[in-house]
């Protein structure tokens, strides 16, 4: 099973999804992330899906699940870099990812998290 690497930057965890996610690696990612959030005491999680070209309802739900999970662990989640085609697919599937914060790219996502926590992490 391929594992998605989780990077730590300050008090933010960054996940960049570069592989075709199958159901098994999605479940693995959720477990890994929960452990890392607790272990590092991260305040924010950025999920970068710039490289994801195809998305299905399972992965769409995964994003919502991760966001809900991280909120329980006191971390905010931002999904960044969603492609137009992916966004249209999700809307057609009826998944509006309510409660998940989004940003156009990684930079804006990290800035949004810093803004939330009352400081500028980009500097």
């Amino acid at each position, binding site marked *: 099973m391929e594992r998605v690497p989780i990077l730590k930057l300050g008090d933010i965890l960054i996940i960049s999804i570069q592989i075709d996610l199958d159901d098994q690696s999605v479940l693995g990612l959720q477990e890994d992330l929960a452990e890392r959030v607790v272990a590092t005491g991260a305040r924010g999680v950025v999920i970068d899906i710039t490289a994801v070209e195809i998305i299905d309802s399972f992965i769409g739900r995964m994003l919502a699940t991760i966001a809900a999970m991280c909120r329980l662990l006191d971390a905010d989640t*931002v*999904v*960044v870099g*969603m*492609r*137009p085609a*992916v*966004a*249209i697919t*999700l*809307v*057609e599937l009826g998944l*509006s*990812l309510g409660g998940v914060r*989004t*940003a*156009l*790219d990684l930079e*804006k*996502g990290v800035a949004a998290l810093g803004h939330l926590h009352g400081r500028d992490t980009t500097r």
Partner: protein
Amino acid sequence: MNVHADVARRRIEELLGTSDEQILRRWSALAKAPVDELKELYQALRTALAEEGSDLADIRGLLAELSRDRVRRGHTPSDTARAVFGLKEAVYEVVEADGGPEALRGFIWFSRLIDDLGLYTIETYATAREKVILDQAEQLLELSTPVVKLWDGIVAVPLVGTLDSARTQVVMEKLLQTLVDTGSEHAVIDITGVPAVDTQVAQHLLKTVVAARLMGAECVISGISPQIAYTIVTLGIEFGDIVTKATLADALAYTLRRSGIEFGEGRRTQIAIRAEDA
């Protein structure tokens, strides 16, 4: 092809060869077209007939050209077809003069051939027309959906004309792509120029807004006319927490404020406030 038909056909070909001058002159008079124009066609027809199993591609090409040419000069497609059918009458006179049974039998075959060719001119005309219509529709689709930049990080789509599903789809894709390309976090969809919306179009607009939100951008809808507002409420469409503004200017002011750009109020407004205070 049986022997009778073959003989009949050859007889017609012979007649076309021997009386070509007479047929051409008569055809020209019937079709009200100059002999030169028809001569090429006539030659092509004879060549095609002489060739065993010819697919008439040459003559079809010539006919297509003739049809286009005549339409440009203001003839109707029926005129062109009638001109082609004129050849039948011209040939029939020769066949009648010949009087032989082979020639008469051959004329039926020849007549069917000319019918095909005449109908082909109509077909060419219809195809050409259809192509023009398709091209125009495509151009209209491209022309009518510009995405303009209002400010750094703010783009707008001014929609003009009736919206249908195909157009809203194009608008949606173009807007979302522009958001990615320019890195804009705010978008304004201005529907001042839209006379009416139905449930499907409203649904598409909502989908666009939600899709933009998924990508991390915010959408404002502006310029909803009273009729459209009435329709939307009557149809029971929920705009939820989507921001709507009366005019494009309001929407721009709102998005500027949202993106943290400070701007001073106009002088006239200040005077108005003072007058109110006094």
